[in-house]
């Protein structure tokens, strides 16, 4: 399947999905309400067979008041990959957990929760991963400040 065909087929799964153009690999934007069902299809559908979740990340966009969750998928049987971007609101960042589909995402989601404060529904064990349990705030948010941090003077 070529890159264009893959994008066409993935976008045909549901309404509201768009192709992200500025990207060097096939990338789609998925609305958060539809994300869990689409993820299930991506894993089980014969055309896609994305059996590997290679990376999971987050980006803070304060101007747009959104946090973007980025997923990298790879299919070991078909050899193609796909990037998925899901945007959640900054005030109330809630996203579905992919733990049931790709168990690796348990710790990836704990890390994102730790550093960005994204809450994953149905996550089995959503605790902080790197920082102390009593840490206040989420340090990778762009407006994070604490007493230890030195402000850049310019």
């Amino acid at each position, binding site marked *: 399947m070529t890159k264009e065909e893959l994008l066409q087929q993935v976008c045909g799964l549901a309404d509201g999905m768009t192709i992200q153009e500025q990207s060097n690999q096939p990338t789609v934007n998925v609305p958060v309400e539809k994300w869990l069902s689409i993820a299930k299809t991506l894993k089980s559908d014969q055309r896609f067979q994305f059996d590997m979740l290679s990376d999971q990340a987050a980006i803070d966009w304060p101007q747009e008041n959104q946090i973007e969750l980025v997923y990298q998928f790879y299919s070991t049987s078909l050899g193609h990959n796909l990037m998925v971007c899901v945007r959640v609101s900054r005030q109330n960042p809630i996203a579905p957990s992919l733990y049931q589909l790709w168990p690796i995402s348990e710790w990836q989601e704990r890390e994102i929760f730790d550093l960005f404060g994204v809450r994953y529904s149905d996550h089995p064990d959503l605790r902080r991963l*790197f920082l102390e349990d009593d840490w206040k705030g989420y*340090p990778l948010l762009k407006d994070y400040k604490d007493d230890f*941090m*030195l*402000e*850049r*003077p310019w």
Partner: protein
Amino acid sequence: MGLITDQMPPMIEAFPGGPAFLTSLDSIINWARSSSLWPLTFGTSCCAIEVMMAAGAAHHDLARFGAEVARPSPRQADLLVLAGTIVKRMEPRLRTLYDQMAEPKYVIATGACAISGGPFIYNSYSTVRGAHEIIPVDVYVPGCPPRPEAFFYGLLTLQKMIREGETIRKPNERRKPVLANLPPGLTLEQLRKEMIQNLESHSVTKFSDKPTGGF
């Protein structure tokens, strides 16, 4: 060393020629210490790779200066090469490692991160701003990361410091921390010459004038 430093000076100084004997003993002890530095394998980020290039790779051959026996246990090491970023969670571990090392112990801090926090000094929630906040440092090697030559220059500086440093009469007395900055305009040739000179003046075997392998 306690026996030597506490009891020997008063015992020996009573004899005629005792102070001179102590001085030559000092130079022997310091020579031995400076030529057999055993580094602790401790690296936290990118600088550690650079130090591995200097310490582990055959091209640079740290064995010439007696510092190639990297020990994984702090109890067998006497040189802590602090290579890399130190974060707050590493701080107590680093302190413990340093405390576990036997006296006399020396610390070389390499890279901008270990000097001041380096690229992460501003807007970082976790980076410790400089190794001196945790442990005393003897030699700083600047760079991000320092080249292997710069690391060697730091090691030579430390050896020089040890030879001129502590004596039996004044244990634990050290020079102030040194910034082992490669002097501007220093060429590789000069550095090589200095290393050869250093090797010749402090070793028992003879070296040929020219280095056989690469630098």
